[in-house]
């Protein structure tokens, strides 16, 4: 039952000259909230750069409100970016896309949503959920749709597929519903999947099955994936590289084994220390102290967003945002503690 995965970190096809599946540069997203005439600006994402190579899985990890879902939703164009560029397979997504551009984008980029209980329309059968993208995105003639629907249901392990087509969501278990959500995302043959906490609503015993399904689909369908989660263990199991997000900023990025084995950013260290890890337990130091809360996104400090909680804070942390520093091969951190 045990086999080793490919070398984590650098994906097999991330060689020079390959256009990345996703290239995000300087992505910023703000929302305006508050009273009319006295609006406040919520800075949900600040200047985020992130690439996903072909067939690579990048884990995007952060707490609630860190902006990780906003990042995925903005890449999917469910939200309009405030500034910055999003390129999928080298094609820039226009900031105000027309419907044809939008359709082409949606065909390449699909999302898997967190909650399989609310993301499927309870009044429609599974054939509707899986069939819609075939009609509106893939433009598949009606005669071919049924075959394709059965094909994708088979790919996600809902067999026999013909049985599932005529069922309603309430007739399925949580795990089966999430498989439908994955099948729906796969239907239009995307190259990039954005999985937004796809296992957090599922029972522990079936989480691993869904994660394994996604890993298998990466191989069989040559998919690239952004795996958004707050679960460090799940992220390190799934991803080649991990990106740690805090208050709308990326603070650390690197091969998963590196980031989890030797977390460099004080925030990553805090997360790592907080995660349950029975293997290293019994007599763990009980001095864990999470000082304070994440900053108010309407009133971000000028320097490092983690400065107020950081045990190693220095004066220069509070004045300007640290630049990215290379700490090891492909492992970068945005913290003044590591060289210049």
């Amino acid at each position, binding site marked *: 039952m045990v086999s080793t995965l490919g070398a984590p970190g650098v994906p097999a096809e991330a060689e020079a000259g390959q256009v990345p599946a996703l290239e995000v540069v300087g992505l910023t997203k703000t929302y305006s909230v508050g009273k009319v005439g006295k609006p406040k600006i919520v800075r949900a994402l600040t200047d985020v750069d992130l690439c996903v190579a072909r067939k690579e899985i990048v884990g995007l990890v952060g707490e609630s409100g860190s902006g990780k879902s906003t990042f995925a939703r903005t890449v999917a164009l469910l939200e309009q970016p405030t500034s910055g560029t999003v390129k999928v397979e080298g094609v820039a997504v226009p900031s105000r896309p027309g419907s044809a551009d939008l359709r082409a984008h949606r065909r390449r980029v699909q999302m898997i949503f967190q909650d399989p209980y609310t993301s499927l329309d309870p009044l429609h059968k599974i054939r509707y959920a899986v069939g819609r993208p075939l009609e509106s995105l893939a433009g598949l003639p009606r005669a071919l749709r049924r075959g394709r629907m059965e094909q994708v249901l088979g790919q996600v392990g809902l067999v026999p597929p013909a049985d599932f087509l005529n069922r309603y969501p309430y007739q399925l278990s949580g795990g089966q519903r999430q498989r439908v959500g994955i099948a729906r995302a796969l239907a239009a043959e995307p190259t990039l999947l954005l999985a937004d906490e796809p296992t957090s609503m599922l029972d522990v015993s079936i989480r691993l099955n869904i994660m394994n399904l996604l890993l298998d689909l990466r191989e069989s369908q040559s998919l690239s994936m952004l795996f958004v989660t707050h679960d460090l263990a799940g992220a390190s199991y799934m991803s080649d590289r991990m990106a740690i997000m805090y208050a709308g900023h990326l603070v650390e990025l690197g091969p998963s084994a590196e980031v989890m084995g030797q977390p460099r950013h004080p925030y990553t260290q805090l997360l*790592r220390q907080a*995660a349950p890890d029975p293997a290293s*337990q019994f007599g*763990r130091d009980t001095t864990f*102290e999470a000082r304070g809360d994440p900053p108010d996104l309407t009133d971000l400090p000028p320097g490092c967003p983690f400065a107020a909680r950081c045990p190693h804070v220095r004066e220069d942390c509070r004045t300007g945002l640290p630049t990215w520093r290379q700490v090891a091969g492909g492992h970068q951190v945005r913290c003044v503690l590591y060289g210049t």
Partner: protein
Amino acid sequence: MSGSPLLALEDVHIGYGWDARSVTPVVRGVDLTVAAGEVVGVAGESGCGKTTLAMAAAGLLDPPGRVTAGRILFEGADLRAMSPEQLRRLRLAEISMVFQASMNVLNPVTRVRKQFLDAMAAHGVRNEDEAIARAREMFDRVRLPQRFLDAFPHQLSGGMRQRAVIALCLVLRPKLVLLDEPTTALDVVVQRSIMQMLSELRSELGFGVVFITHDLSLLVEVADRIAIMYAGQVVEEAPAKHLYGAAGHPYTRALMSAFPPLGVARVRMEGLPGQPPDLRRLPPGCAFAPRCLQAVEGTCDAVAPPASSSEGHRVVCHLYEPKEAPVG
């Protein structure tokens, strides 16, 4: 009272159903004891009966849920024999329960202070100054600024609300606290600080704890003893350290490996196939047999498994031999 444990469940059966002829058995013969100051963890998948068991232990089970057999003894007194008024006096003051979705526990339209006052007044603390003083002290203990007593629940973050609910559950100094997935909806950093706070409070105040969760990796850190439930039965019970090192039941091992380890080389792990059985149509043998990779045909699927125990480690499985060197 000396001699009797804080909480003792003796062969408890619980079912759901309005009609005695069509009761779905949800808890099937559970024995479990909690000593004063002890933390007992209960783990299992959704639907294994762990929350139902806790609701019954808190005297909160409402129809169609019904304890159909067995005894639930709190300090030696059977909850099943108590009148509604006796149960009401017991709840919160002696036995309190922290629920999973704490945001839905606090009344959204009244200030936190009022909810503390109401709860204490219902248990005889009618002097407002005294009640406020006790609420303030509890807020200090859960490390919430006292000014949040005057806040409405929506003005608190998820972690702060859970702290407020914990403070409310402890304000009358109960002897037994039932925690039903108290940190599941929270972020990992908040979860860790709440867990640490709970363990400090327990050593200061000395209450016993039943900690219910599906997160076994969290449980082995916080519990003294762990009971693993499957399809309404405790299939394994052991001291936490023992369970982690030497799980005896295939289901426990499957639950353990459902959490990928952190910071080691990535190795493919297999999840648990299938789903828990339909409790209305349980298989004749071991309830886990249809999903068990080691099930022996003709035995596991035909005969109810025996319980074997040694040194406080109890396993209900045909394949378990306690004498052998521990596996795993």
